[in-house]
């Protein structure tokens, strides 16, 4: 029974334990805790935390403080930083909180192995707020009655903590609610402040580590007002042309503050502001008249204000308003100058007057007319001519002389003072000296030395020198007391300007002194193009053209010529810029040189294109020195050779030029006297007036009387027939042109049988003199020779003309046409003649043949003659039988050797009168 109660008590004890755990720690009871709980620590300070174990856990789990392990973000804190206070408390100390990571946990090793977390805290590290510094306030007026005050301060270093700033302010007797910044920590705006009472303002900064206050600022807000700028500004012109009246409205009550003003203004288009003297606008006002303005000029105005005593801030500048002053008469006459051109008539000038339009500040209005007066200063006439023009120039044709020109500008208000220019007959006065230029500040300054005489003023004339445009003159006036000025115009860099300075005197004018100048120089835009003028063996003359002024970009100070061989070093030669030619010397002969040229200005040089040339192999006269001796030597040798040949001519003749038998001295000459008396020499003389045939012995044969030949005469024919005809005896006879000569007409004068049968030296000649037919006077004498020597050349030519065809073939062809009359032949004349021969009677044929031969020069005829020369003996056959063609063909075929051998047997020889002279 007792034990049963004991068990019940034990169960109740456990239940109480469980309940007590649940009550004390909620759902999970912690076995300890850390103090301090979630501390906020100063960065860099030391920190000690204690982990305190619950007694209940000691009893329940045998847990003690010496088992505690400290961790920062799961990293075990070294044991050296632990300290066991007692058996339930362990502390950990960090000397520098900057290294402390969250969370800081207290853990324990249960049963020596299992690590259990007991408790953890989050440590916040930061800095206390610094004292806010540089507190300042400004009251910006936003409307007529609203004056919010904005104060700014320097909040100091970051605190890494949630730090609250408050702007506090108060009157001595009254506190106001704090101004709390929104989204920022360095400024705050108090919406409404009251003036004329001192306000104490300060800033309070507070976070978990502390609180700091700035130094108080005691001020009357009226002293820190930035008022709104005046508005509704208007500008009105006054009667005076130099005054404009400004009016405006102030947006701050005079009861609040009195204002002073700043008024600024500028000419429209000009960026520079001018300001009305502040002392003129140092009192409250709503209008002001600005004086000292230019007439007929548009001005821009703006205004601002601040507290009259200068305490506070200036307002912003008001909106800009413009106003135009009224017109006034021109303040000065237009500057005037002239250019003079000589007319065709030397007694007249063309004077081009030009004047400058007045600057707006001089014109003081719209210039609508210029009045030009030209007055001659000649003692003979002092007439004044007046011209009213709208332009700024006037061209007049005037007689040479001295003139005074006056120009007056008119606007709506009045006329300008006159501008006077004296145009003397000649510029005889002293000129200026030492005209010089100097680029300065992007402008071109011109200076000169004044002449000794008093100069009224100077005129500086200039123009841009260019190849592409004319020199358009610009000019400007300068007072007589200066000796230098800047050119007032659009002076471009890299352009050449011709500047001329004229001194004007009260009674005349000095001649102009000129100088060329550049505002800025550059390298030339291109280099000179060099080429050779003459190339020798060791020298070359180079030429080039000067660069145009547009290409120069500056003053050409020098040229440099660079030349080199293909593999050699470049050599440079500096040349004076005035030259356009230079001779390179000491060059290597027969060598390719590359040459280029650079032109230099003060800013550098630029090279022209490369040019190559080759020096000559021989110098001047060298070739002549070689050729002339060679020629002389050659001539000498030739002369010696000729002399030698002359001396040895017999020997040479014997070997090279054997004596050709002269037919005129042949044996036939011996029978020349036996020629019948009918031989008509007179007609022969007429036919051969030069006597080339004067020595020819003529054998006259009656064409129609074959029987009149003596046996002796006919003997050679027979011999020839025997020799040349092998198979057909009836084909013998003197050969001739089968085309034009009939066997009866041509008489072979070939030598007797032994002569013919002689060796190659044997020459056959025939001289045929045709007799007239039946008492008709023969019109032509045909002298024929059996020698082929003089005709070899013709034969060869005929062969060439026949297309190189075989002579035999030609002959066959010829005879074929002769037989076949229907066929055509290119040798048409010959063919026709053949037909006549065949069909006409023999007597007719003879005369006709003579005519044909006498007029012959045609190749077909010659061909026929030549081809049949050696076959003259066969011609009889042709006139005897229609079968002749076959016979002749056979003869030719059967006698090839004769054709080949005959030319070798004969030497050319003039047929002389007297006929056959066998040797």
């Amino acid at each position: 029974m007792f034990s049963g109660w004991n068990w019940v008590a034990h169960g109740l004890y456990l239940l109480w334990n469980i309940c007590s755990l649940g009550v004390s720690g909620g759902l999970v009871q912690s076995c300890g805790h850390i103090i301090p709980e979630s501390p906020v620590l100063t960065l860099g300070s030391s920190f000690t935390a204690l982990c305190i174990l619950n007694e209940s856990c000691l009893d329940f789990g045998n847990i003690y403080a010496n088992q505690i392990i400290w961790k920062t973000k799961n990293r075990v804190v070294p044991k050296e930083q632990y300290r066991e206070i007692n058996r339930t408390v362990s502390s950990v100390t960090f000397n520098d909180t900057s290294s402390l990571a969250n969370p800081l946990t207290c853990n324990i090793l249960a049963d020596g192995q299992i690590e259990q977390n007991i408790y953890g805290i989050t440590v916040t590290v930061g800095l206390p707020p610094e004292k806010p510094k540089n507190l300042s306030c400004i009251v910006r007026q936003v409307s007529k009655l609203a004056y919010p005050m904005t104060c700014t301060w320097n909040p100091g270093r970051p605190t890494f903590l949630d730090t609250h700033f408050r702007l506090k302010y108060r009157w001595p007797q009254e506190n106001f609610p704090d101004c709390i910044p929104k989204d920022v920590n360095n400024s705050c705006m108090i919406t409404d402040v009251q003036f004329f009472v001192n306000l104490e303002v300060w800033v309070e900064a507070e976070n978990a580590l502390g609180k700091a206050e700035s130094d108080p600022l005691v001020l009357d807000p009226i002293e820190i007002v930035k008022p709104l700028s005046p508005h509704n500004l208007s500008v009105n012109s006054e009667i005076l042309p130099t005054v404009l009246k400004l009016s405006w409205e102030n947006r701050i009550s005079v009861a609040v503050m009195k204002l002073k003003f700043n008024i600024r203004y500028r000419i429209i288009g000009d960026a520079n502001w001018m300001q009305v003297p502040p002392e003129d606008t140092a009192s409250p006002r709503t209008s002001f008249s600005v004086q000292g303005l230019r007439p007929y000029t548009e001005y821009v105005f703006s205004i601002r204000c601040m507290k009259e005593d200068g305490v506070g801030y200036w307002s912003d500048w008001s909106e800009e308003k413009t106003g135009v002053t009224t017109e006034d008469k021109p303040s000065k006459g237009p500057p005037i100058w002239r250019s003079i051109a000589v007319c065709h008539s030397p007694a007249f000038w063309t004077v081009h007057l030009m004047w400058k339009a007045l600057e707006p500040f001089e014109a003081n209005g719209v210039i609508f007319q210029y009045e030009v007066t030209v007055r001659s200063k000649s003692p003979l006439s002092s007439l004044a001519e007046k011209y009213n023009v709208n332009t700024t120039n006037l061209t007049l044709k005037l007689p040479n002389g001295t003139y005074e020109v006056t120009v007056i500008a008119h606007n709506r208000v009045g006329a300008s003072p006159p501008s006077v220019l004296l145009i003397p007959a000649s510029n005889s006065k002293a000129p200026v000296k030492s005209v010089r230029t100097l680029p300065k500040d992007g402008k071109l300054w011109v200076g000169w030395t004044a002449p000794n005489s008093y100069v009224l003023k100077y005129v500086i004339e200039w123009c841009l020198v260019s190849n592409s445009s004319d020199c358009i003159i610009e000019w400007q006036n300068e007072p007589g007391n200066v000796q230098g000025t800047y050119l007032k115009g659009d002076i471009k860099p890299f352009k050449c300007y011709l500047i001329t300075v004229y001194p004007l005197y009260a009674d005349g004018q000095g001649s102009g002194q000129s100088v060329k100048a550049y505002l800025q120089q550059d390298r030339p835009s291109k280099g000179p193009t060099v080429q050779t003028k003459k190339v020798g063996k060791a020298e070359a003359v180079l030429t080039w053209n000067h660069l145009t002024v547009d290409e120069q970009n500056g003053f050409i100070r020098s040229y440099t010529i660079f030349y080199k061989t293909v593999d050699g070093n470049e050599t440079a030669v500096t040349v004076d810029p005035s030259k356009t030619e230079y001779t390179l010397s000491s060059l290597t002969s027969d060598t390719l040189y590359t040459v280029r040229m650079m032109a230099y200005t003060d800013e550098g040089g630029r090279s022209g294109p490369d040019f190559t040339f080759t020096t000559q192999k021989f110098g001047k006269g060298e070739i002549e020195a070689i050729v002339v001796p060679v020629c002389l030597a050659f001539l000498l040798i030739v002369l010696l050779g000729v002399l030698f040949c002359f001396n040895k001519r017999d020997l040479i003749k014997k070997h090279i030029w054997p004596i050709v038998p002269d037919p005129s001295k042949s044996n036939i000459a011996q029978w020349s006297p036996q020629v019948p008396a009918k031989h008509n020499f007179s007609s022969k003389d007429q036919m051969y007036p030069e006597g080339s045939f004067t020595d020819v012995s003529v054998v006259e044969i009656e064409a129609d009387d074959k029987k009149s030949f003596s046996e002796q005469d006919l003997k050679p024919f027979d011999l020839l027939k025997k020799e040349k005809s092998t198979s057909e005896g009836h084909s013998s006879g003197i050969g001739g042109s089968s085309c034009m000569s009939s066997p009866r007409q041509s008489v072979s004068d070939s030598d007797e049988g032994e002569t013919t049968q002689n060796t190659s030296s044997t020459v056959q000649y025939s001289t045929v003199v045709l007799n007239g037919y039946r008492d008709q006077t023969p019109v032509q004498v045909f002298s024929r020779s059996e020698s082929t020597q003089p005709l070899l050349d013709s034969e060869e030519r005929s062969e060439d003309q026949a297309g190189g065809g075989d002579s035999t073939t030609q002959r066959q062809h010829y005879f074929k046409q002769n037989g076949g009359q229907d066929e055509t032949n290119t040798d048409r004349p010959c063919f026709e003649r053949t037909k006549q021969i065949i069909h006409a009677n023999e007597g007719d044929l003879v005369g006709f043949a003579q005519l044909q031969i006498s007029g012959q020069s045609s190749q077909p005829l010659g061909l026929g003659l030549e081809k049949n020369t050696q076959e003259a003996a066969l011609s009889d056959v042709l006139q005897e039988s229609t079968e002749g063609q076959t016979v002749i063909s056979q003869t030719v075929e059967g006698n090839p050797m004769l054709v080949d051998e005959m030319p070798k047997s004969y030497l050319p020889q003039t047929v002389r009168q007297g006929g056959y002279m066998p040797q």
Partner: protein
Amino acid sequence: MAAADNTSAALRRRDLCSRGIRLAGKMRSDVVDLLDTYVERQGLDASASVAAVEGVPAAAVERWDEQTGTQRLLENLAAYRAFRALLAQMLEEQQEQLGEADAALGRALAAVLLQVSAFTYHLEELLRLESRGPPSEEGAEPPPAPHLSLFERKLRGLGVLRELAQWAVRSTRDLRQLAKPSPGSSSAASLAESP
């Protein structure tokens, strides 16, 4: 030492007078503007004649130029303390009546109230410089507001503002009078400030 104190006190007095004058000027300007707004918003006739309001000190006074400085300061202080209470009451009534619907009128009333309060401070400081010290406010409290109808309250408000405008003018003159160098005073500079 005593001379330095006197000089400092004189400068302080002068500064207080100067700024008091300007504050009175601005207060008058603002009250005049407020009067227009008030008449318009409360639906009153600007030319309406309002009888003397009970508890509102009258600006007009006989033999003004015979008053001493302290007397002037005391009368001003009494008046402005009364105005301060009246304006606070008007502001409260206006907020009850119009709520936030007419914030501009409320802001203007509050601004004038602040100026009145600031001017009161100026007067108290001047009285301290007179070695007299400001009187206690307990005796100067206005009588409790009688139960008035809405229209009567509006009219009373109009009367308060008009009288305040009058007082602003008078205060300016009073302070100028005070700022004038008293015979034998070393401060020779005069204040030429005029609103």
